[in-house]
């Protein structure tokens, strides 16, 4: 009996040995920090010394009390909702147009996709050079007799500029994901439907949509998470301005809390970001799962 247990454990040793390095690194740098985030959010840690005090929920209260922090949360949420909608509608439309074979489709796919391999920070700087008050676009507008547009100098317009730039940079990836989803649908289904007299619209509604549903869910969740963590692009494009109007949650965590040694407050903002991400991710998944089930019926 005892011998049996020993043998059983001996058989497990190689597996455990092979699994443990990755598990240790992952726990240390990913899972433990998430738990620590909550602990640190209850303190006034400054990022350097290990002398810190517990302050209770003060950091959370000020995150909602401080108008600038609250604005950043609202802007991030708005950006995530609007951006996810725009990116996915655009990507699904483009993907259904170019999912077929042919050199033209492949070229267009490449052209829409390429910003993916450029750092968001660099894209932000590029668009800043194009959109700033004395930038390329405004000098073009003035040269043809139009008045310049305050792309980055008016708070409301700057928010739209950030949104449009993010969509420009990000919808190509979603397009590629949708194309992959469309290609994984067996061509036989379409052939059978065509033989049965189904038109283009009917085939899209009864074959494409239901079979694409899981890919739609994953792509929506991934774009949502992507928009919720917007930082580098804003840093380079608008610097969070004008007057802090384009600051996001991560922007505040890194450029206000981190830089000013208020890491306890930054940790509270991190926890809020984690909770928002979880609510959005789970919400979309549950909602979509019902949609997926309904379509299958």
């Amino acid at each position, binding site marked *: 009996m005892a011998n049996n247990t020993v043998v059983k454990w001996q058989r497990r040793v*190689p597996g455990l040995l*092979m*699994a443990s*390095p*990755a598990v240790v*690194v*992952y726990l240390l740098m*990913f899972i*433990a*920090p998430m738990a620590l985030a909550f602990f*640190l959010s209850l303190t006034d840690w400054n*990022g*350097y010394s290990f002398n810190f005090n517990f302050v209770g929920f003060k950091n959370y209260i000020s995150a909602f009390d401080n108008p600038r922090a609250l604005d950043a949360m609202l802007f991030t949420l708005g950006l995530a909702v609007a951006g996810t909608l725009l990116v996915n509608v655009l990507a699904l439309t*483009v993907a259904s*147009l170019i999912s*077929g*074979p042919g050199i033209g489709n492949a070229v*267009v796919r*490449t052209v829409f996709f*390429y910003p993916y*391999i*450029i*750092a*968001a*920070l*660099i894209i932000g*700087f*590029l668009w800043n050079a194009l959109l*700033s008050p004395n930038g390329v676009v405004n*000098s*073009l507008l003035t040269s043809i007799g139009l008045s310049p547009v305050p792309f980055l100098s008016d708070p409301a317009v700057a928010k739209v500029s950030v949104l449009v730039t993010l969509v*420009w940079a990000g919808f190509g*990836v979603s397009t*590629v994901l949708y*194309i*992959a989803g469309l*290609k994984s649908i067996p061509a036989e289904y379409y052939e059978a439907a*065509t033989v049965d007299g189904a038109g283009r619209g009917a085939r899209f509604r009864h074959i494409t949509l239901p079979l694409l549903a*899981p*890919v739609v869910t994953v792509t929506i*969740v*991934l774009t949502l*998470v992507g928009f*919720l*963590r917007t*930082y*580098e692009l804003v*840093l380079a494009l608008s610097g969070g301005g004008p007057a802090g109007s384009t600051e996001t949650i991560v922007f505040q*965590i*890194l450029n206000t*809390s981190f830089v000013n040694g208020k890491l306890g407050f*930054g*940790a509270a903002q*991190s*926890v809020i970001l*984690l909770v928002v*991400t979880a609510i959005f*991710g789970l919400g979309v*998944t549950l909602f979509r*799962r019902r949609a997926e089930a309904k379509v299958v019926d």
Partner: protein
Amino acid sequence: MAIEEAFVTTVTGRPTDVTLDTRAVRAQEHSRRRRRGGPDSLPLGAALIKWGFLGIGALIMLVPMYIMIISAFKSEADIFANPLGISAESFTPSYLVDALTTSKFNVVAAYGTTLMFVVLVNIFSIALAAPVSYVIARGRARWHVVLLLLFVSGLFIPGQATLIPAIFVLRTLGLMGTIPGFVLFETAHTLPLTIFLFVAYVRTIPREIDEAAAIDGAGKMRAFWSCIFPIMRPAVATVIVLTSIGVWNDFVTPQTILGPGSDLYTVTTGVNAAISQFSTDFTVVFPTLLLAIAPAIVFFIFMQRYIIGGLAAGATKG
């Protein structure tokens, strides 16, 4: 949890539908091309609308890049006077040479530093992820599923949200501001995607290979590294491509963990130090951006098929 479950059920549900190997994708495309005939092609009017729409879209995607490239070779006065064109008289490589040789930001050194980080993170990421993926893919116990969920859930967690507490961990370990600390954090954040893709791939490798290795007397570890790992080459290629792009483009991690005070600049932190959103000297901005983007574009041109193939593999299994 529900997302991860969905992920895992689709991973396990369609173990044979793996398109990681881009050659397989192309073969599939080929056979589809043969099967699809005339009835699917668009009528002329619809085709015109389609290509008009896509053409305008492609223009919007390419014009910023075009402006950046031509502006890198022009004087400031010329950038304003003629933003969309370039003439032989106004062309000058001197601003690009200035950006290459400026004392403010040594681009060549930054290429080297970033490349070193890319290589290190790739090595550690694969060395850690491959064995655990094999154990998970072959395991039938409950803890294997739990482990997979734990790793895959990381795909949906914003890395920046774990950065501040990770700084706490790194300070405790004395690794804050060091290259090992940076590589450790960066490696941990590549594990979710790497393990997800590896597990899906190992599941398509027949168990008979493991059994044959065991009969020949190889232990589990030996069987993996000498029999299974070589078969995983397409998945490893995908992972290297995606990890390399991620590390090359990362700005937040080097900026916070290595610190702006250190002399160690990656391409992104160096560009950030050299130009800011208040930079108005376009003869510095455009050449610097061109130098920062050039390696990524070259990499993209040669690896495009693998990049898109790898992402596609992730999506259809997700």
